[in-house]
């Protein structure tokens, strides 16, 4: 019972992860195993010093995290708090905000492409710039497209956070709120002093989800322009080095190893919190 799933997990997840780190110290074109040459830390030296896409990608990943953390996640929380009150049409509102969560980020990219397009998109028509020289190519302009992509990603992320917080809010003991109200606290105070702290477990899950989503962001930038020209992300750089002509497995693996080390920080914090009690 335990053996087969564990083998699958080891062979297809953990051994490749270790191999990724090992491959980051070699030079290889991906053809025959006999072509593998040791490379020391030269792949890393190249990435940190000379690789043009690396530092923009790091900045974009950080921006992605900040945008989701400061705008998308709080927006989802706000929607959840508003919808948790007994207001009319709450279910309909929930269904609307939740709908994008069902869609893949690829489809989110395609749908927003239709909205953002320079000549045919709705946004430029609404701004009155369509067909003029001022029309903005929202996904094409390298100074703007990361923000355009972040708004599209927020469209999905906020609904996800909303649904998790709605479940969290249902679990808050109503007598706590009543007691605070009797003590004269207003709605805002009740939320920040009582309800929000009580939801600590779910807050942690949402922080972890937000960090991991921003490290995993890939599909949406890949469908827009394969993660180039203003949309560089670490995950996209890994793939650019692995597919197509001139495969540089060593450089791609070094990028993957960097992504791995960054990802392990939230993963370890989350797991140690989750399993501490039981161990």
């Amino acid at each position, binding site marked *: *019972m*335990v053996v*087969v*799933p564990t083998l*699958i*997990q080891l062979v*297809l997840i953990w051994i*490749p992860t270790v191999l*990724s780190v090992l*491959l980051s110290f070699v030079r290889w074109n991906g053809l025959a*195993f006999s072509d593998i040459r040791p490379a020391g830390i030269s792949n890393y030296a190249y990435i940190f010093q000379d690789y043009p896409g690396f530092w923009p990608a790091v900045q974009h990943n950080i921006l992605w995290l900040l945008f989701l953390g400061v705008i998308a996640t709080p927006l989802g929380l706000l*929607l959840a708090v508003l*919808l948790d*009150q*007994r*207001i*009319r049409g709450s279910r309909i*509102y929930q*269904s609307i*905000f939740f709908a994008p969560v*069902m*869609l*893949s*980020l*690829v489809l989110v990219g*395609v*749908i927003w492409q*239709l*909205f953002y397009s320079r000549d*045919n998109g*709705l946004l430029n*028509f609404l701004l009155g710039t*369509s067909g003029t020289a001022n029309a903005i190519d929202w996904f094409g302009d390298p100074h703007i497209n990361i923000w355009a992509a972040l708004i599209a990603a927020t*469209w999905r992320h906020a609904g*996800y956070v909303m*649904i*998790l917080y709605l479940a969290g809010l*249902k679990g808050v003991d109503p007598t706590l709120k009543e007691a605070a109200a009797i003590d004269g606290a207003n709605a805002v105070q009740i939320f920040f002093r009582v309800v929000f702290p009580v939801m600590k*477990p*779910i807050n942690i899950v*949402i922080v972890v*989800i937000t960090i*991991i989503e921003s*490290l*995993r962001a*890939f599909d949406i930038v*890949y*469908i827009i322009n394969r993660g180039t020209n203003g949309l560089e992300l670490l*995950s996209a750089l*890994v793939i650019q080095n*692995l597919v197509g002509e001139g495969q540089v*497995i060593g450089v791609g693996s070094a990028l*993957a190893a960097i*992504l*791995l080390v960054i*990802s392990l920080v939230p*993963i370890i914090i989350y*797991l140690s919190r*989750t399993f501490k009690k039981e*161990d």
Partner: protein
Amino acid sequence: MTDTISPPELTPLLRPSAPRPQKAKPHYGTHVFLLVMSVVWLIPLVWALFTALRSKADTDKYGYFSFGGAFNFDNFITAWNQGGFANLLWNSVIITVPTVILTLFFASMMAFAVSRFTWKFNITLLIIFTAGNLLPPQVLAAPLFEMFKHFELPYWFSDSGTLLNTYIGVIAVDTAFQVGFCTFVLSNYMKALPQELSEAAVVDGASVWRQYVGIIMPLTKPALAALGTLEVIWIYNDFFWPLLFIQTGSRMPLTTGLNNLQGQFLANYNLMAAGAIITVIPTLVIYLLLQRQFVAGLTLGANKG
């Protein structure tokens, strides 16, 4: 039936919650805000549908932002035929169905073992499984690609002679990635089932398999239904693994195939919009039929912090 013994996490979501004794106050400001946000939220979808229902000739003549011309489903038919949607959709089915079944099968066995028996490596195993699910997939892309490329198979089995460009490769990796999450969720669910059930079964002489098949699995049905719904959507939406492993365009599932269609329909936004709407439809059907299960699946994973 499941009402008799049902762990606490699922119940508030799978059953309509009891009305809370609270006065309904008028929330005018809230309603205005929510209405505005709802409209903003719906605009991209409505715009895609609006574009899909009009012909390219009409939009060229009257402009995209206009109501001139006819509204019909011609683009959907053209996109369906030109894009080979029947084929792509079938590929999605071939990948999604086995992946979800295998994932739930392996995850439920694993969860049963670590939650119902005391063994000193239980926590270690759970950590390995859960952590694997949280990794960005790009971290393992290169080694998996090379492993599959050098894994030789007879040509009657795979026309690439390797695991590349096969459904089996995609199904295997998708399963490995999802088993971690499902094991975590199911083990929490199974832990909440009373231990006396197993004890009684042991007294009656039930084997380990008998306990798994006859006692624990039936009681885990609500969680399996929720996870199954969630996984169908997730695997259908998976873009990355088929992108990495499958080279032949006609063998790709729908979500990954969109990447090629975008190039093919580049000059025709109306067709692209129709293609996007067609791709939404399967998820929309599941959403409308099984929204509650889907939400329960999502929150099950997050509730146990």
